């Protein structure tokens, strides 16, 4: 239990008046100061009694949408239910909004709550940057009627909202997507119009007509054939967003936000052309793989940006490239690295180039350049690009 500013002022002023009443020999002032002190003590005892009720107060939080685009607004509602049998005369509810989200209304409300009643705090929040927003703590403050003392409690209620970055670099995305080895047109190859691309193990959902029954009868292995005309290309998209990128540039156009937008543009471009994308993103000290982002499974893209927390990100680009060594990743048709000149400057090319090269038959690097890029960025690129070109990667610079 804590005393508030009003409580401190009331206590100080009543003591001052008490002392002054002796100087002024005024019984009225003496009586007044003593009455105020009595109110002060009454408030204290009232709140001491009420503070035991804090465990009987139930709190719930709901958000209207869990997945949005950056810059969108969501509606957050916090419900507080008085499960005790006593009146709560004065109750304040305050929700903690995660950075860098901005509450459009103050997430604070003061109410009186009889037993069994529900108080609702509703406010809108704008999510200016892409990534995961965690609403965590709700504060409740019980107060005496005059607000002289307060008893604060908090509850950890985690609600997550993911803001997708707006896609950027459509030209670059189309450029990459157009180099895919094939598109997926269901059923056309059944008449033998297309060449055999590969034979692979049966997976749940495969067309039963594509099963190689003769091989199954002979060897007991359930295999299916894939033809070139109907195979989906599979690609890796490696997203390099180290933490410091969040602090370069002005929000909402920091380097980190630019890379996130470019990465979504690249993924959307691939998915539109029937590719299946496996994305690799680093959060704090570990890399995460979100596999199988495709036209029929677009929700996976939300899982990808669930691993991006604004103003957190990866501890360093080195963690991302080093982790590629230890992940059990098979070679795909394509590997696309999305990064910035800063990311390149921090990276050892002897680590990055071989690790990314082994992931794809074709390797591209998409470099995000902010519109107001500085001379230093050009200097970095003048050193890095010849090395990358020598290793046979395709280079795309997006602004």
């Amino acid at each position, binding site marked *: 239990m804590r005393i508030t*500013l009003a409580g401190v002022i009331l206590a100080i002023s009543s003591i001052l008046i008490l002392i002054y009443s002796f100087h002024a020999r005024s019984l009225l*002032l*003496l009586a007044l100061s*003593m009455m*105020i002190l009595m109110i002060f003590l009454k408030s204290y005892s009232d709140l001491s009694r009420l503070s035991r009720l804090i465990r009987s107060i139930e709190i719930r939080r709901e958000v209207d949408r869990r997945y949005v685009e950056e810059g969108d607004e969501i509606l957050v509602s916090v419900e507080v239910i008085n499960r005790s049998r006593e009146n709560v*005369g*004065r109750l304040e509810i305050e929700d903690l909004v995660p950075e860098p989200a901005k509450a459009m209304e103050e997430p*604070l409300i003061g109410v009186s709550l*009889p037993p069994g009643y529900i108080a609702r705090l509703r406010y809108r929040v704008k999510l200016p940057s892409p990534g995961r927003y965690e609403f965590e703590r709700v504060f409740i403050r019980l107060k005496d009627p005059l607000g002289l003392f307060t008893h604060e409690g908090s509850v950890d209620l985690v609600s997550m909202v993911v803001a997708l970055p707006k896609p950027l670099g459509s030209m670059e995305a189309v450029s990459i997507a157009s180099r895919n080895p094939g598109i997926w047109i269901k059923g056309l190859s059944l008449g033998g119009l297309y060449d055999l691309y590969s034979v692979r193990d049966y997976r749940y959902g495969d067309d039963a007509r594509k099963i190689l029954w003769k091989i199954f009868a002979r060897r007991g292995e359930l295999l299916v054939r894939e033809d070139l005309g109907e195979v989906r290309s599979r690609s890796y998209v490696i997203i390099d967003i180290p933490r410091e990128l969040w602090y370069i540039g002005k929000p909402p156009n920091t380097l980190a936000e630019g890379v996130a937008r470019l990465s979504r543009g690249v993924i959307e471009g691939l998915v539109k052309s029937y590719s299946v994308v496996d994305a690799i993103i680093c959060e704090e000290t570990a890399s995460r793989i979100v596999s199988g982002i495709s036209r029929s499974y677009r929700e996976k893209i939300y899982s990808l940006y669930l691993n991006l927390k604004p103003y957190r990100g990866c501890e360093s680009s080195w963690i991302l490239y080093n982790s590629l060594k230890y992940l059990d990743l098979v070679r795909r048709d394509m590997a696309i690295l999305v990064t910035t000149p800063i990311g390149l400057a921090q990276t050892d090319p002897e680590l990055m180039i071989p690790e990314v090269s082994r992931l794809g038959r074709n390797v591209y690097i998409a470099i995000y350049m902010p519109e107001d890029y500085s001379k230093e960025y050009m200097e970095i690129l003048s050193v890095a690009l010849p090395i990358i070109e020598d290793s046979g990667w395709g280079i795309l610079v997006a602004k």
Partner: protein
Amino acid sequence: MQNRSLGIYGFLISGQAVLVSIVIASIAYTIHQGSIYPSMLLLTVSLASRLVGLDISPLGYLAAMILSITMDMASVIPIYMAGLISSLAISYLILRTPRELWRYKAMESLKTLSLVLLAIPLSQYTWLVAIALRPQDPFPLGVVIMITLVMLISVILRGGRDLEQILEPLVRSPEALSKTYLYIARLLTIMSSIAYAVITTNPVPVVILIIAVMITRIATKKINTEYIKTITEIPVPLTILIYILIQ
């Protein structure tokens, strides 16, 4: 966390605080036209509180009271104090409340208001008694009588019940008997001390009572066992009784 920007909730609270401060400053200046500075100080802090968006309007009342004390303007101090209490009470009354709590809120606000207003009859009654008993210097005796009366009121308030309900546990809840006995004993001790002091114009039993109650309060804070707590309450009435018998 207390002094942060309060949004719409704060707008209501600080908005009413400015209105109350304007009214109080006007009344205070009308009552005592010696100086306008305390009232100006109050208004300035209230408006600053509104503009900055921080709930610091009570500081204005404190500043006005301190300035009034330094300028020896005793007559306006109760006005500022009433303003401070009103401002806090109104911030409670304007809270969003279901209909079921209106009565509860009205009762709570009336209780506070009655306690503040009690200062007027209490001081006048004490003054009358003191001037009747010691016309040459009534203030010291008045102080003693008043402190005892305030103790009596606080005992009644701490009981949290009306006087007519005191005997209820005797009938309904035998477990609460020990507390009821103590409650009655405290009331009787205070009343007999005041009565003895007034009749004999001797404030000593009241002074003994105050000191003994203070010691008992400190002792009971240290003790957790209920039965021993009960025993620590016994010396106060006993001491008063022995003193009266000796006299």
